[in-house]
C-alpha cells in the first residue's frame, strides 16, 4: 500500500506541475514589490450620483499615490520645469491662480483658461470643448501640447523608465516596472478621480450642519427662479452643479473660438463650450472659457444683460431670458449664494497636495 501511495503522490505532483503553466501562481516572497496593489473604493459623497470607475482602470492605493507623484512631477515636461500642478494649483481649486491664460514651458500662452480639477469622476468629456473622450485620454493632452509641457510621450517614458523610483512604484501599482503610456495615463487619472470637493458651506447646509444667511438663501431662490437667475437649468443645483452639457452662452456674435465644433465639425456645435461646475467658483477667477471676466459681478451682468441674442446656437434658456431682469441687489444675493460653494477643506486637503520628497510611498 505504501508503494501505491508513493506512486500516486508522484503522479499527483506531475499533474499539478504540468498544468500550472497557465494558472496564476502566487509567489510567496518577502519582497513588498510583488504584493498586489490594494484596491481603493472611491465613494460618492452624500447627495452625489454614484461613481462609475472604468473597468480598465480600477483604482488602487498605490496607483493613486503614484498618480499624485506624477501630477506634481516636472519631469513630464520637455525641460523638466513644469508639472500638471504648475497650472492646476490646489489653492485656486486647481486653476492657474488669477491668470487668464497659462504659460507653457516656452513662455507661450494658450487661448483658454485653465480648468479646475475637481469632481472629475462624474465628468463625461474633458477640456473646454470635450476633446478628450476619457479622463485617461485627457492626461496626455497637456504633456504633449507644444504650448504647454511640450514633451513627447517617448521622452516621458524614457525618463520614467530610467528613474530610480518610478519603475518600482509602477511595479507596486500595476505589477510591472515596464512603464508604458497606458500606465502613465491610468495612474494620473486615478489620482485625479480622488480630487473631490463636497464639503462646502452649502453641503453642510444640505446635511443640516450649517445655516445660510438671509442673502445666501435669497440667492439660492433666485438661482432656481426661471424668471430671475435661471442658473439651475445648466448648473444643476446640488452635487455636481453642472449637467456636463456643451452650450453657447452668448458671449460673442462672431466666434473667435469655435469650441466644440472643432471636435465634431457639426454646425450646431459652433461656439459651444462645456458647462463648468460652479463649485469653488469664488476661487477660479477669471471666468468663461477664455477667462474674459475678472469678477463674478461681470459674469452675473453677462447673464443679466450682456449675452448676444444674435449668437449662433445660443442656448435656449439664455435666448428666452429677459434682459435686465436682475437688480443689483439680486445679483449680489446670487453671488452670496455662489460663495457658499467654496470648500476650504478641499483646497487644504493634504491628500491632494504635492507629496513631500521624503514622503514614503508604500
Amino acid at each position, binding site marked *: 500500500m505504501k508503494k501505491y501511495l508513493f506512486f500516486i503522490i508522484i503522479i499527483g505532483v506531475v499533474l499539478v506541475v504540468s498544468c500550472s503553466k497557465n494558472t496564476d501562481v502566487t509567489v510567496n516572497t518577502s519582497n513588498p514589490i510583488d504584493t498586489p496593489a490594494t484596491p481603493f473604493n472611491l465613494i460618492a459623497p452624500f447627495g452625489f450620483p454614484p461613481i462609475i470607475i472604468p473597468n480598465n482602470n480600477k483604482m488602487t492605493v498605490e496607483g493613486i499615490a503614484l498618480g499624485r507623484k506624477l501630477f506634481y512631477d516636472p519631469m513630464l515636461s520637455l525641460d523638466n520645469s513644469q508639472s500638471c500642478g504648475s497650472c492646476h494649483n490646489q489653492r485656486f481649486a486647481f486653476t492657474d491662480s488669477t491668470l487668464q491664460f497659462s504659460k507653457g514651458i516656452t513662455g507661450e500662452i494658450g487661448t483658454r483658461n485653465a480648468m479646475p480639477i475637481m469632481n472629475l469622476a462624474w465628468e463625461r468629456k474633458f*477640456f473646454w470643448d470635450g476633446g478628450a*473622450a476619457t479622463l485617461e*485620454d485627457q492626461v496626455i493632452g497637456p504633456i504633449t*501640447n507644444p504650448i504647454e509641457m511640450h514633451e513627447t510621450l517617448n521622452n516621458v517614458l524614457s525618463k520614467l523608465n530610467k528613474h530610480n523610483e518610478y519603475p518600482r512604484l509602477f511595479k507596486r501599482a500595476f505589477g510591472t516596472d515596464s512603464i508604458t*503610456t*497606458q500606465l502613465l495615463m*491610468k495612474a494620473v487619472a486615478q489620482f485625479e478621480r480622488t480630487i473631490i470637493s463636497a464639503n462646502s458651506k452649502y453641503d453642510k447646509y444640505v446635511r443640516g450642519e450649517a445655516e445660510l444667511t438671509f442673502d445666501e438663501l435669497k440667492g439660492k431662490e433666485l438661482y432656481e427662479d426661471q424668471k430671475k437667475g435661471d442658473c439651475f437649468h445648466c448648473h444643476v443645483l446640488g452635487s455636481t452643479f453642472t449637467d456636463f452639457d456643451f452650450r453657447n452662452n452668448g458671449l460673442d456674435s462672431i466666434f473667435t473660438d469655435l469650441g466644440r465644433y472643432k471636435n465634431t*465639425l457639426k454646425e450646431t456645435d459652433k461656439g459651444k463650450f462645456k458647462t463648468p461646475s460652479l463649485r469653488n467658483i469664488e476661487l477660479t477667477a477669471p471666468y468663461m472659457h477664455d477667462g474674459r471676466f475678472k469678477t463674478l459681478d461681470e459674469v452675473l451682468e453677462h447673464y443679466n444683460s450682456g449675452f448676444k441674442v444674435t449668437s449662433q446656437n445660443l442656448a435656449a434658456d439664455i435666448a428666452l431670458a429677459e434682459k435686465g431682469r436682475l437688480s443689483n441687489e439680486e445679483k449680489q444675493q446670487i453671488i452670496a449664494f455662489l460663495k457658499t460653494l467654496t470648500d476650504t477643506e478641499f483646497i487644504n486637503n493634504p491628500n491632494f497636495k504635492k507629496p513631500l520628497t521624503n514622503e514614503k510611498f508604500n
Partner: protein
Amino acid sequence: MKNLIFCAIILAGFLLVSCTKEETKQTNNNTASVANINVVFNNTVSGMAINTDNTNYTNAIGNKYTVDILKYYVTNIVLEKENGALFYAKNYNLIDLNETLQNTISLKNVPTGKYTKLRFILGVDSARNTSGLQDGYLDPSYGMIWTWNTGYIFFKHEGNFTNSANQVKPLRFHLGTEAARGFVEVWLPEININGINSKLTIDFDLNKAYSSTSNIDFNVDNDRQSTEEVDRFWISNLKNNLEKSFSYKNIE
C-alpha cells in the same frame, strides 16, 4: 499489480484531459491545411521606392512634393478565398515609411488555398477609435492620436511642396475622424497560399492618394488636420483616393 496499472491509466487520462485545452486549436487545423504568411506593404510613388532625403516627386496634376513622414494604419485584414471563405486577421498595424520592420504584417494559421481578395481598414475601426488607452501600435506614443480630440490619425503625410509661385511650402496632412475611415479592397490573381510561399507584397502608390478618384491640389490644400469645415471635402476626397491606392504586387 492490475490495480496499479488501472490507477496509472486513470491518472494519465486525467493528465491528458486536463492539459489539452491549449492544444485543441492546433489539432483542429492539421498542419498541412494552414500556413503563415507575411503581408508586406511596399510604399511607392508610381511604383518607385520613396526616399525621405528631400527627393522631389510629382503628382498627377504636377505638384512637386517631398516625403518626410508617411504613416498609416492597416487594421482588420480579411483574406477572401475564391469560394468566399474568409480569414480574419484582427490585426492593428501601423505602416511607417521610416520603420521598415513595421511594414511586414505576419498572419498566422491562414488556411491554405486560392485567394482572390485582401481587404483591410485604412485607419482604426470605430470600436477602437474612442480612447488612446490601448497597447500595441495603438499606443499614443506612436504619435498617431489626437490628444485634443480623442481619435487616431489614420494617415499622415508630412513634407514640403513647391507652390505655383515656385516657393517651397510645408505639406502636412493628418487624416482622421469617423468620416475618414477607408475600406480597401485589393484584388488578388487567385494567389495560392500553400505553405511554400511566405511573402505577399502589396504596393501603395502615394501619387494615387492624390489623384485616383479626385485630384488634390497642394496649392489649395497643403495643411489639413481634419478640424475645419473646409477639411470635410478634403477628408472625403483623400479617403476615396486612398481606397484605390493599393494593389497586388506579387507573392513569393
